[in-house]
């Protein structure tokens, strides 16, 4: 499957041309404005809608090749729409050695992301993003959901934090473990935890 196999089409934004013109007026229209203009667009729409970029090209002296060149060069910019909430998992050195990969596995599981190219849950709730380092190395591994940072995580903690977040944000997690056990042969996670803690399951 290609990089754009999962299109997230349903999440595409409607671009307001007036807004783009206002940014051009505030930020500038020469070539140095390319990065800040893209940043303004992404802050508003959370990705770079094609139409907004065309409007920038039409209203400034920035060429399409410069603008698209810049947009595809920097890690910050996204050309695909994202879910309603962002999950950023840090993959800095300290996080890598402390198990950032397991956070990825756990989050992909709970979001129901099967295809390795898929980064957004099918219901448009969350998008998982890998980031290089968010500078919280002493609290590794770390993930950021929306504006909130979660430190010292294990895979299971990441799932629990997401469940909490989803509950508060009224979102459904497509791959939630609760649904996985429809056959009913295992106990609920919290029950299992309780029984383990009290040691009652030990023969």
């Amino acid at each position, binding site marked *: 499957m290609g990089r754009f196999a999962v299109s997230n089409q349903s999440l595409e934004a409607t671009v307001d041309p007036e807004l783009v013109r206002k940014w051009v007026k505030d930020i500038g229209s020469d070539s140095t404005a390319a990065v800040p203009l893209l*940043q303004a667009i992404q802050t508003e729409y959370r990705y770079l809608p094609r139409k907004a970029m065309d409007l920038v090209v039409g209203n400034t002296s920035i060429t399409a090749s410069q603008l698209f060149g810049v947009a595809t060069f920097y890690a910050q910019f996204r050309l695909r729409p994202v879910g309603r909430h962002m999950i950023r998992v840090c*993959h800095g050195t*300290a996080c890598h050695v402390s198990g950032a990969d397991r956070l990825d*596995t756990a989050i992909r599981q709970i979001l129901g992301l099967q295809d390795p190219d898929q980064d957004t849950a099918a219901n448009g709730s969350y998008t998982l993003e890998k980031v290089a380092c968010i*500078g919280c190395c002493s609290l590794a591994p770390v993930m950021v959901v929306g504006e909130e940072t979660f430190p010292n995580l294990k895979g299971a903690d990441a799932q629990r934090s997401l469940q909490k977040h989803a509950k508060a944000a009224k979102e459904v997690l497509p791959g939630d473990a609760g649904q996985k056990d429809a056959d009913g042969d295992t106990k609920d996670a919290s029950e299992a935890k309780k029984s*383990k803690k009290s040691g009652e399951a030990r023969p």
Partner: protein
Amino acid sequence: MTITIGEGTCGIAAGARDVAALLKQRFPEAHMQSVSCLGMCHQEPMIEIANPDGKSYLYGKVNKKNLPKIVHFHQGKGDIPAANFIRSSDEPDTDKGSYLTSQTRIALRNVGHLDPTSVESFRARGGYKAIEKILKGGMSPEAVLEEVKTSNLRGRGGAGFPTAIKWGFARSAPGYPKYLVCNGDEGDPGAFMDRSLLEGDPHSVLEGMLIAAYAIGASKGYAYIRAEYPLAVKFFGQALQDARQLGYLGDKILGTDFSFDIKIKEGAGAFVCGEETALLASIEGQRGMPRIRPPFPAIQGLFGKPTIINNVETLANLAWIINNGGASYAAIGTEKSKGTKVFALAGAVSRGGLVEVPMGMSIGEVINKIGGGSASGRAIKAVQLGGPSGGCIPASMFDTPIDYDAINATGAIMGSGGMVVMDSQSCMVDIARYFLDFTQVESCGKCTFCRVGTLRMKEILSKICEGKGTMEDLQILEDLAPQIKDASLCGLGQTAPNPVLTTLKYFRDEYIAHVQDKRCPGGVCKALITHTINQKDCTGCTICKRYCPANCITGELKKPETWVIDQSLCINCGMCKEVCNPEAVIVESLGLTAAHSQPMRASA
């Protein structure tokens, strides 16, 4: 009563805001002060309570549960809560407190001691004295340059070029206007010094920019700050506003002929922009690709004008040097590396955080004395220094002093100062692969050797991690490395092979174990390990099954003897091991010898 709360990014992540709200409830009359990270990130959230009598107490790992004990103590009820107590004004050198007392803080002198959003708080600690001394005291730009030359300050961004010499080039270069750029685009994974400085003491960086601009004759400045550090961008923006209002920034600063103003440019996430010429291209609105030097930016930089780019930490040292004299700075450190260096200590170490030590202190002292040694109790194997451009230094060489030249001699580099400690449960081949994966993605693609060479190296390392490597591959890695170094235009490609070369040099046995024995000694490489359940320790609680993403664990509730992992389905993600409380999941890397009786799985 004054209550100080550490609300840097790390403090907030650990829950400082909740603690602050609770304290405000408990002590409504107290003066609450929010400071940035004190550097003891391992103790976050941290608070300091100063009683009305002036005695102050520092506490760490404060949360909802243990806060009442601390509150009681300050209400005169109960004993000092030992679990959270770090140090008091009476007793600064406790076991935990030695983290701070073992350091020499120059660049970090204000971090954690002032409110980064208050210019008054900065001035109360002697802020802007240096620029006043220069401008009001009639110090000439030459005299400033001379003072910095005396200090022997070298650039803290990584390469360690003498600051005053670089400034001299720009000062004498023709062209107007001249630019001064602060490089706050800390892209190294594992480093966060710049974040802490910009978040914790933005005015000191600003004052450093003023000093540098005055010395080289710059009238315009840019602060290039990572967009991933929103708090740093916000606080630095606030600092600019306040400084402008007080006449420290803008036209005719402090009534003199010196005019200088600063704009913030947010970086957009490209490691290669740590390279001067790439950073300049980025400010100009282009893809951040480096160009051939010379001409050096000091002669022909931003928009073709003379430009000096200084790292955040370099700038944070300047006011101290002007206030205390270059000679006192040069009195600290080794013969060729003067002053102090800030490190971001993280990984398998007990006390991680920001550490500032005099040059010449040994790496081992930083890790063991300040960092408190291994966090897990397992033996420390190595330290990764300098991020993707650096290398791994084995524990046997921990007496190496912190000195640009001594560290370069090991094959690593000082870099911006990331120090990631690794214990016996890390795999050095995996670490090399991790860094090559990073540099390969971050290569701008301009130079073929960097673009294709790093990719080829990464492929070979992945092959080795999967147990498919040959001894010939090690030779190819060693042949490729010097070619990538020589044929790359900028620092990214020139240093990209360092992690591979240092691990091959110091941990060759681990490579050989992967290649010949198909075994990962650290138990990390997924294709070479197995997860099994030790039924003796198992309680049959089912939690591993619940969290297994591969659905490969089966067994009956409360019947430990029935629990097994289906090796043909297991992806070795380690989730089961993580959630298992009685530690019944065993990870083994049995290798070739055992493979005769138990076939190894080819790949995860």
